[in-house]
């Protein structure tokens, strides 16, 4: 249930258990990374709460895995990876491009700066900031936002 302190953990346990019984192994470096060796090669899953990235050698293995996951959980197949954690992904035979264009646009929109002029160096170069120089800035507490 949403809002409960243990909800994310309960989900982690559930999907982890399922993947392990299906032959996946958790990475020791990152528990959200699962890898399975198959006859064709390997299948890799990265989990970010409710977002999954799936990749690997064999398209057959990948589509089989997708089918199983859809059966087991209410999952939506979003097809090829295009947008993940604010990063646009463009896949081509030449390689994979990662862009944060949309993320930057969203931030500009959020801070009301969509009309600003693009500039190569948005901040003065080699600027030295010191704690006891210049004017104090008053911050309204309700406007401070954490990410």
């Amino acid at each position: 249930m949403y809002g409960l302190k243990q909800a994310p953990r309960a989900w982690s346990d559930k999907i982890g258990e399922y993947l392990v019984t299906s032959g996946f192994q958790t990475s020791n470096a990152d528990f959200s990374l699962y890898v399975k060796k198959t006859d064709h090669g390997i299948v890799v899953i990265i989990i970010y709460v409710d977002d999954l990235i799936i990749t690997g050698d064999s398209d057959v293995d990948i589509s089989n895995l997708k089918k199983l996951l859809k059966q087991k959980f209410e999952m939506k197949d979003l097809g090829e990876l295009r947008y993940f954690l604010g990063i646009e992904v463009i896949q081509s035979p030449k390689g994979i491009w990662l862009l944060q264009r949309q993320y930057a646009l969203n931030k500009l929109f959020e801070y009301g700066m969509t009309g600003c002029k693009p500039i190569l160096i948005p901040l003065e170069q080699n600027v030295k900031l010191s704690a006891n120089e210049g004017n104090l800035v008053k911050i309204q507490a309700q406007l401070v936002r954490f990410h």
Partner: protein
Amino acid sequence: MAKKVLKTPNNNSGVRRSTRVKYLVERLTYDGFVAHHYAYMVRVIWEVEPTCFEQAIGNPKWDNAMNEEMAALDANAIWELVALLEDKKAIGCKWVYKVKHNVDGSMNRYKTRLVAKGYAQTYGIDYEETYSLVAKMTTVRAIIAMAAANGWSLHQMDVKNVFLHGDLQEEVYMEKPLGYVD
């Protein structure tokens, strides 16, 4: 209407700045937007999200959304109705309403979540350990690099109602959601 001065140029910082006087009215109107951005703004502002159950109830759009959420909760059989024992405490819950927009600003759907007031839970009684599956950015980039090097294709899936899937280890008591008695 008299223009209100937002900022008068001052030049005591040593940095060269524009000397144009900037007016508040230039910043706060929608006049500068092209037609489809203007339409987007109107769309977003026009749809008001209720902040509580009392504001939402009776509006068919939100009633539907609440029924949908309730159906998802029922389908996952995540709770049962019990009488609260004297020595137990129940936490509250709240309906949360959100209008989802498409990229072009058109309405996507009315979404409602029933959320438990987890801040009222006590460590050791209502819950033990917390943990979340959050991939590290370096992992994501490493895997994408591997995919690029090996010519693998990358796919994406998402889970609907993700937090309705897990099984709780602890017993948690929650008050009944407003509007749904039995």
